[in-house]
């Protein structure tokens, strides 16, 4: 498991760096929003992985809240761009 975790965390770190690059560099605000969306999904997966690492099932509740609410920020940004807010 621990050798696996090294690979997993390395890959996920690289993915996060690229999402952050998109947030910082992205020419339009939509690009930044796509970066944020990717980062939130990665975070949900990370929280579930944390509950596996710490062996506590209670952390899954946090992941549940994140999975349910993570898309709201992106929807708010999209509605801003459309002129809905």
């Amino acid at each position, binding site marked *: 498991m621990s050798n696996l975790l090294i690979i997993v965390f390395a890959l996920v770190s690289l993915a996060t760096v690229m999402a*952050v690059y998109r947030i910082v560099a992205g020419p339009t605000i939509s690009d930044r929003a796509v970066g944020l969306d990717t980062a*939130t999904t990665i975070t949900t997966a990370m929280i579930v992985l944390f509950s596996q690492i710490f062996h506590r099932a209670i952390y899954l509740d946090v992941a549940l809240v994140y999975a349910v609410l993570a898309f709201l920020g992106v929807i708010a940004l999209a509605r801003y761009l459309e002129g809905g807010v």
Partner: protein
Amino acid sequence: MILEYFMLFLLFLMLGLAIYAVETKDLLASVVAAGFVSLVASIVYLYLQAPDVAMTEAAIGAGLTTLIFIIAIRKTERYEK
């Protein structure tokens, strides 16, 4: 061990994006960057064994804060002069 390095890396990213949020001229980009900061803060709380606080930060930072800032930007203006 690997987990500690991962947290260090995330803290580094968080500080970088905080600086970006303060320095950029586009207020909307600044709000997105602040959203990422709260995302990382939530993982940090989880690492520090505070699931209650992580859940609060997730619930607030995911939607509410972003929306409130976006409404304010809509009612005022988007670019800093």
